[in-house]
C-alpha cells in the first residue's frame, strides 16, 4: 500500500471478482469512499470498481428513507407472510450465498443465480453424460492447440487470451495455435493473440452444431455427409496436438447452445482415446461458480433449488428465476457486484443490492450492500470451478454485506 501525493491509498494485487477469470493484478486507489482502478485492470472491471465519494444511499421502505433496522423489519415482515418467495440475483460472495440459502430454507421459496442460464447449458451435458475438463493453468502451459467454439468468449472474459493462452507454453514448442470455429476475435482480443498462430473457420451460428458433429465423425474415423465445410485439416490438427483445449462461453451461444456443448464434449471424448484433450467451459460472472458450489455442498443440487416445509428439491425449469417469478408474491433480489436491474414482476421486491442500482419501479424494500472485494472480504470462485479467490476489504463506506443482511432478516422472521 502506498500513499500517493493526492492523498488516499493505492492497493496493489487486488483480486477482481467480476467475470470469473480471477485476475489478481488490479491496483485500486481509494480516497475516502471514492475508488479508482489503475493499471492492470480491464476496462469492464475498472468501471465496476469505480466509486465516487458520494455517501451510500439510505435503506428505503416504499421509497422512503428509513433506518437499517426498519428496512430489515419490513423485509422480515414481507417474508414472514410470503406465500411464494423467489430469491434471485444471488450476486454475492460464498458467505452471502450461504446466508441467502439459509434464509430461503426458513421462508420457503426458490433460489437461482441471475447468470445461470449459460451454466445450465453446460450442465445439460456435464450432468447427464460427463466430460473431461481442464483449468486455466493447465491450458496456459499445455494447450498447444486451442479451439474456440462460437462467438469470441473474450467479449465477456476480457483478459482471456492474455491470461489463459499466452503465445507460448511451458510444455510445447513454438507459438500456440488458436482456431476460431464459428467466431472471430474482437480487436482487443487480436492484440492479446499477437504471436500466436490464429486461424478462423467461418461457420454460421446455425451450423455450429453440425460442424462439431462433422468434426466428431472425422475424429471417430467415419465419413461425414458431403458438405461445403472441410474440417479434415482441423481434425488432423487436433489429433496431432499434445493437449488440445476446447473453449466456449455457453451464455454467448445461440438457443441450441446445449447441443453445441454436447457435440464439443463428444469431440473431447474421442480425442482422449488416443491422445489428450479437455474443455474449458466458461461461465462464472459475479461468483456464479461459488453459488453453484455452495448450493451443491449444502443442498446437493447445482442452484435452481426450492424449499418447502424444511425439505429442498431441484427443478431446472420451475425454479429458474424467470419462471418462478410468475407465481411469486415476494422476490428477494441480491446483487452486490454490480447494479444489475432486477427483472420485472408482480411480486413485492426486496432488493439487497448495489447502491447504484436503478429500478424500473421502486422496490418495497431497498437495502444497499457493499461489494465483496471492496467493502468487505470474502470468497468467490474462478470460472474454471477449481480455484477459490480470497477477496479483501479496501474501504469503509458503511455498507453491510449480503451475508449480514440475510442473517439479520432471518433473525427477525416471525
Amino acid at each position, binding site marked *: 500500500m502506498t500513499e500517493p501525493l493526492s492523498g488516499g491509498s493505492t492497493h496493489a*494485487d487486488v*483480486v477482481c471478482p467480476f467475470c470469473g477469470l*480471477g*485476475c*489478481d*493484478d488490479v491496483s485500486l486507489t481509494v480516497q475516502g469512499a471514492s475508488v479508482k482502478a489503475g493499471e492492470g485492470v480491464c476496462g469492464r472491471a475498472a468501471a465496476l470498481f469505480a466509486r465516487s465519494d458520494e455517501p451510500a444511499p439510505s435503506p428505503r421502505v416504499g421509497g422512503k428513507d428509513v433506518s437499517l433496522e426498519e428496512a430489515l423489519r419490513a423485509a422480515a415482515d414481507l417474508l414472514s407472510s410470503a406465500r411464494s418467495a423467489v430469491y434471485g440475483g444471488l450476486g454475492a460472495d*460464498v458467505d452471502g450465498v*450461504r446466508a441467502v440459502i439459509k434464509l430461503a*430454507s426458513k421462508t420457503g421459496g426458490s433460489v437461482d443465480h441471475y447468470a445461470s442460464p449459460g451454466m445450465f447449458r453446460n*450442465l445439460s451435458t*456435464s*450432468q*447427464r*453424460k*460427463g*466430460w*473431461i*475438463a*481442464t*483449468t*486455466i*493453468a*493447465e491450458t*496456459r*502451459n*499445455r494447450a498447444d492447440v486451442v479451439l474456440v467454439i462460437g462467438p469470441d468468449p473474450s467479449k465477456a472474459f476480457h483478459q482471456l487470451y492474455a*491470461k*489463459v493462452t499466452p503465445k507460448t507454453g*511451458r*510444455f510445447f514448442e513454438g507459438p500456440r495455435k488458436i482456431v476460431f470455429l464459428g467466431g472471430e476475435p474482437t480487436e482487443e482480443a487480436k492484440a492479446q493473440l499477437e504471436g500466436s498462430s490464429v486461424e478462423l473457420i467461418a461457420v454460421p451460428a446455425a451450423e455450429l452444431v453440425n460442424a462439431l458433429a462433422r468434426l466428431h465423425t472425422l475424429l471417430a474415423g467415419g465419413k461425414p455427409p458431403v458438405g461445403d465445410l472441410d474440417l479434415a485439416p482441423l481434425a488432423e490438427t487436433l489429433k496431432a496436438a*499434445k*493437449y488440445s483445449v476446447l473453449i466456449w462461453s455457453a451464455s454467448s451461444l445461440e438457443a441450441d447452445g446445449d447441443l453445441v456443448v454436447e457435440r464439443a464434449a463428444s469431440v473431447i471424448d474421442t480425442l482422449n482415446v488416443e*491422445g*489428450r484433450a*479437455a474443455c474449458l467451459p466458461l461461465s462464472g460472472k459475479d461468483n456464479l461458480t461459488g453459488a453453484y*458450489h*455452495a448450493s*451443491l*455442498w*449444502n*443442498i*446437493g*443440487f*447445482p442452484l435452481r433449488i426450492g*424449499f418447502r*416445509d*424444511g*425439505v*429442498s*428439491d*431441484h427443478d431446472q425449469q420451475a425454479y429458474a428465476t424467470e419462471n418462478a417469478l410468475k407465481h411469486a408474491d415476494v422476490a428477494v433480489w441480491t446483487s452486490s457486484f454490480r447494479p444489475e436491474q432486477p427483472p420485472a414482476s408482480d411480486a413485492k421486491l426486496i432488493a439487497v443490492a448495489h447502491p447504484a442500482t436503478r429500478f424500473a419501479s421502486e422496490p418495497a424494500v431497498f437495502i444497499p450492500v457493499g461489494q465483496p472485494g471492496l467493502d468487505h*472480504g470474502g*470468497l468467490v*470462485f474462478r470460472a474454471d*470451478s*477449481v*480455484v*477459490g*479467490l*480470497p477477496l479483501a476489504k479496501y474501504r469503509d463506506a458503511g455498507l453491510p454485506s449480503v451475508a449480514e443482511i440475510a442473517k439479520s432478516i432471518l433473525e427477525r422472521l416471525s
Partner: protein
Amino acid sequence: MSAVRITGGKVLDPCHGEVGVVRDVVIKDGRIAAADAVDGPIETIDAKGGVVMAGAIDIHSHIAGGKSNISRLLMSEEQRAIREPAGEFCGCGGGLSTMTAHATGCRYAEMGYTAVFEPAVIASNARHMHAEMKDIPFLDTGGYLVLGNDDFLLDLIASGAGQQAVNDYVAWMLAATKTMAIKIVNPGGINAFKFNARFMQLDEKNPHYEITPRTILQTLIKAVTELGLAHPIHLHGCNLGVPGNEQTTLDTVKAAEGMPLHMTHVQFHSYGTEGDRKFSSGAAKIAEAVNKNPNISIDVGQVMFGQTVTASADLMSQHRNRGIASPKRWIGMDMEMDAACGIVPFAYKDKSFVNALQWAIGLELFLLVEDPWRIYLTTDHPNGAPFTTYPHLIRLLMDKDFRDEQFAKLPKSVRKHSILGELKREYTLEEIAIVTRAAPAKILGFTDRGHLGAGAVGDVVVYEDNADREAMFTTARYVLKDGRVIVKDGAIVDLVYGRTHQVKPDYDKSMEARLDRWFDEAVGYKAKTFKIADHEIRDGQGAVVHATARSA
C-alpha cells in the same frame, strides 16, 4: 465451568488397557478430567449397561471439495431420492454416497464419530475444501495435501534441486493450504496422463520428467520424516484396480525401506491374476507383508454392495474405468499443474465375480492383518461404499456366523476363490475400539484423542451393549463433543462445530521467491493469492496447529 459425569458405563479405552472397566468418566470444560476433579455442580449421564468409548476417528473419507461436488452433480437421482428430513437440526441437504455437508456431520455424529479427515486436498482446490468443511457440523476435520504429481515438485526432483529444497517446498505448501499431512495419489501417474501415458509402473519413467514413482515416493517419505510430520506419507499407490497389482503393492512396501508409510484403500491394490478369470485375491500376500513390516500401516477401503460413486484424484485410473460407469456418465478434470480428478458412478453387485471378490478381499485383509494398531476401518467413502455402512462392516468383523451367512450368498465361483470362509477370527470390542479410535489417533499423531485419559478432548460416546453389533454401532445412546451432548438416544440434540487440524513446519524463506516466480510465470496468478490466510479457516476460529520437529 461446565462439567459432565458419565456414570456406570463399561469403559473401553485400549490406550490405557481398560477393557470394560466400570468407572465414571468426567469431562470438565471440554476435556476429560480425573474422577474427583469437579467439586461444584455437575451434569450426570447414566451410562449403566452401556459401553463408553472415545469419539471415533475416520482416517480416510472423501467428505469435501471439488470432487465431492462433481459427485453430487452426477448423482442427482440419489440426491432426489434421499433428502434430509425436516427438523430442528436439518440442513435441508441430502444424499448418501454424495451426502451434503450438514448431513455428513449429522450421520457421522449419530454413529459416534467426532473426527473425520479428508484425504485428498488438491492444493489449488484447498480453499474450496476449507469452505465446505466449515459447513460440516460436529466433526473435527483436516486435510491431507496431494503432492507427487505437481509440476513444481517433479521439476525440483528432476532437476536435482536436492532434498532440502523439496522439504522447503513441502513445508511451504502445507502452510499455504492449511493441511495436516501429505497424500500421494498414483505417484507421477496423474501427471504422466497429462502427457498421454496410460499406465505408470513403480519403476517407469515419467514421459516428461523422466523420474519414477519410486523416486517420488522415497523423496516425499524423506521430506515428511525430516520435517517431522506425525502422519507418514498417506499413499494411494500405482495401478489402482489393475489385476496383478498385488506385486506393485508388495514392491511398494519394500520401496519404503523401513521408513513409516501408510498405504490407503489397500483392498483396491490387492489383486492377483490367478484363476479362469485372471482376477484373484492378493490379500494373504499383502497381509503377510504388512505383518512383517512394522513400518507399514494400512486402511482397507472395504467394498459394500450397492450404488455409490467413485471419486479420485487418479484420473489415469478413472479414465480406464469410464466404460464401467453406472449410470453411464463420468467427469474427469486436469487441475492447475497440480493434480486431477475423475468421478465415475458405480454400483457394486454381489452377483458380479469381480465385485464380490473385492468384498471378500477387503474382509480377508481385515482378518489377516494381525496388529489392529496398524489397520483402520474405512470404505474409502464413497469409493468402496458410503461411510454409513460402517456398522454393518463392524458386524461382519465381529460375528463369524453372520459373515458366513453373507459369504454363502455369493456366487460359488467367488467362494472358491476366497479363503474367507476358513477365517475364524472375530474382532473383539476392544479391537473395534482400536481400529476406529485409538489406532487412527496414534497414526495421525493425536495425543489427546482416541482415548479417555485425563486431558483428552471431551469427545465421548456411550453405546448400548447390544449383541447385534450392527444395531449397536448404528446409533449411539449418547455422543458428547468437547463435553457437550450432541446426540441422545440416536438423535441430534444440539449443534456444535469442530476444529480444523493443520501443521506448519518451517521452511527456508528463499522458497518464497521461487514460488512467487512459479506462480507468476506458470500458474498465472500470484502466490500470495494462492496462500490461505488464518482468518479463512472457520472465520479465524477453531484452527489447531500441531507441532512438528521443524516448527515455524
